[in-house]
């Protein structure tokens, strides 16, 4: 039995995007991804699956990476979101973006903003000492950033062009050799 369809309930709230406090007014059903893409014109965050399966919509909330398609915009009231446009724009690219260019760590470019945001969030997770499935010593003070760690932690970001070797090289360039 279908629920009767009513006019959408809307909400107005504040959200900081790429350092800028914005007041937005949206349909409560609007995902963070669609808020960014369809309302704020920030189309660098990509919609690959809309189901949290591909990682193309990865953004940073604070310094944690999330799939923007899996949360509603309203859930981020008062929070600070960084999209790829906030990471860096042509002429002032972030070192990770430069490394992606240098290593040719993308082809079609559609998963690329997600890969870059994810790699930044991933490095922050390692720096915080958060272990992954492949971390050997869970009690270790610092987690060595092995290639295996990079591959494991980046596996939520699919690249169908399959630039995986090049993406790992780019992340390695930024993060440095394993300790």
């Amino acid at each position, binding site marked *: 039995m*279908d629920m009767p*369809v*009513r006019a*959408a309930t809307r909400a107005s709230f504040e959200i900081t995007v790429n350092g800028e406090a914005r007041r937005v007014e949206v*349909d409560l*059903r*609007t995902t963070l991804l*669609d808020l960014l*893409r*369809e309302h704020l*014109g920030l*189309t*660098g965050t*990509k*919609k*690959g*699956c*809309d*189901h949290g*399966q*591909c990682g193309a919509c990865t953004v940073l909330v604070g310094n944690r990476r999330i799939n923007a398609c899996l949360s509603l915009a309203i859930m981020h009231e008062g929070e600070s979101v960084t*999209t*790829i*446009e906030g*990471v*860096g*724009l*042509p*002429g002032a*690219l972030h070192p990770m*973006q430069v490394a*992606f*260019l*240098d290593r*040719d760590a*993308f*082809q*079609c*470019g*559609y*998963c*690329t*903003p997600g890969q*870059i945001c994810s790699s930044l969030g991933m490095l922050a997770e390692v720096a915080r000492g958060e272990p992954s499935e492949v971390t050997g010593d869970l009690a270790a003070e610092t987690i060595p950033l092995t*290639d295996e760690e990079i*591959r*494991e932690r*980046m*596996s939520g*970001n*699919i690249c*169908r*062009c*399959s*630039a*995986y*070797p*090049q*993406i*790992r090289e780019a992340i390695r360039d930024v993060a440095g050799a394993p300790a």
Partner: protein
Amino acid sequence: MTTVADYAKPNPIHQNRQGIIGRAVDRYEGPLKVSGTAPYAYEVKPPSPPMYGVLVGAEIGCGEVIAVDDAAAAAAPGVALVWHPFNAPPHQGARGAKIYVQSLAGAEPVFASKAVTYFGQPVALVVADTLENASAAARLVRLSYNEAAERDYVFDPAKAGPARGDQESRVGDFEAAFAAAPVKVDETYTTPIQNHCQMEPCATTAWWEDDKVVVHASIQMIKQPQHLLAETLMIDRKNVRLLSRYIGGGFGGKGSVYEDFALAALAARDLGRPVKIALTRQQMFNATVHRPATVQRVRLGATTDGRLTAFALEATTHAARGEPFLERAAAFSRSLYAAPNRLTGHKLQLLDIAVASAMRAPGEAVGMLSLEEAMDELAEKLGLDPIELRLRNEPDRHPETGQPFSVRQLVECMKDGAARFGWEKRNPKPGQMRDGRWLVGLGMATAIRGNFMLPAKASMRAEADGTIRLQQGMTDIGTGSYTILAQITAETMGVPLEKVVVEIGDSGFSPAPGSGGQFGAASAGSGALAGGMALRAKLADLAIADPASPLYGASAAAVDFRDGLIAVENRSETIASLVQRLSPAGIEVEGASAPAGDARDYASHSYGAHFAEVGVDPITGEVRLRRMLGAFACGRILNEKTARSQITGGMIWGVGTALTEQNRVDPRYGSLVAQDLATYLAPVHADIANLDAYFLPEVDDKANPLGIKGVGEAGICGAGAAIANAVYNACGARVR
């Protein structure tokens, strides 16, 4: 007409005086892509806020829509229109109908028929003011169906019939030779349905400017879809401007257009508003195309010293009833190994499931999985190293046609790759190498993929600030078209890369064939070279005829282009100064290229050899790729960096075909079972350990004036077979 001999004549690409050809320059459009500022089709900003279309898919696989209840959807908030087979918008309702005689493609009606020919076929469209409203309303459209009693959802090779187009090819007497062969392999291999899974779902944004429609779509080709859309909309094709500037992956799947394409244009016309429609990820599986499953029987007969005397590869596959695409899984094998008695061919079964079509390296990608495993099996029976077996069957001419090869370094790829990989460490006896809990094995396979070239044009303009602007109806689906076109333009015109502007993906530009069949660089690149040469000739003529030019009176043949200058010996001026003086608005010409008349006298292919090391867990059977190396010979490499990416990307697709990727048909509904990226397992970072590829030096001076060959599809060919052979070497289990 151009001949193959012309290809080898000196030209700016062969001369490469600036060294831009081959250089590992960064992607031309890279800064836009790494910053998310390259607008893909759904992201293009229309002149006014767009409305949002959502497609509704059929819930049966075969039959017809007999009723639609659209009242709830139409009354839902924000809904502007609901279309389905009972109220299809006015457009060309006859499939393939042509209003324009010269058109390259016929109409593709939407909702013009009540027939359902596959599960998930779009049968309704809802357009609303927001994506949320459109998505919610789409769920309210109620469709009733009559499901056909007679239907075929299940691939059954026994029911396959002759395949139109490529039925059978015979040389000698295969049956007699196979019967007499002292050493034989006779095995049947199966490959499953595979899906493209481009990261960007198909999407279209359309709006009208008076009687003209502007359409941004995610498609691999420009010209044919432009014609198709004009026919469908019943308007002059000059009134269709079709753009595809940034494309989030294609792999063959965007060589077709889908319902979003015409419906966005139709709905925008009806509503007087821009409309955009994207397929959902789930719709991408059933409502676009896939690579069909195959069953392949390989029979190899050899002498005891490993010479093939009888060779057969027979492939059976399936296609949609209305669109009998043929996955020519056996075709490549006619070019690969020498054998005097040969049988290759295809059979096809028509099914009532989603449409089968081209996916990266159609034919080779799955055909090589069978043959290259069978060769491994034969090598074992003969007690020969797999490379040695292939060396003993290396042909000196095309084994079927007798054509000479343009250039073929397959042997060099195998030998050089083996040395770099450390192939000598392989123990031919399976199950002998261990690393902790892992059984470790090495495997190899060859790669071959046809090389093609199609006619292309390019317009080339010199501008007053010295910019050289290339405009071409080419696409870049991630292949690197922008980048190599910039390199070709810069080297041809003798200007630095920074002075080149490349604009592609617009039907208003000179036509090029687009991306597919790894023919893009050869075709569009040759067009760009021709455009550059035409511009050189034009600028030279202008300079030597202009008393104000230092080149005045010189012979046209003596004019050279270097360092941004037009020069004759020590007399020169900049391109910029000439343009400023004679035509400040710019000087533009169009060049055209086409395959040489005698191109078919030669067999031209890209070649490679894959080497893989895998670990197999003897308890769970889990297979992990440990390392992989590809050695390739693909003619001149235009860009070391982007070419390597193309090849390694293809190799990883091969890893996917061997280890994770498959789809299946639900026999009850005719639907593809895997309908998202959590159930269709494309490789992820963790699946790909050390994997690399490199190129042997090569110039194919019989392929095209650039001396290049395709790299976009060569990488997948044979890659999965190398993995399968490594699995056998690790644990003794054949994967067929």
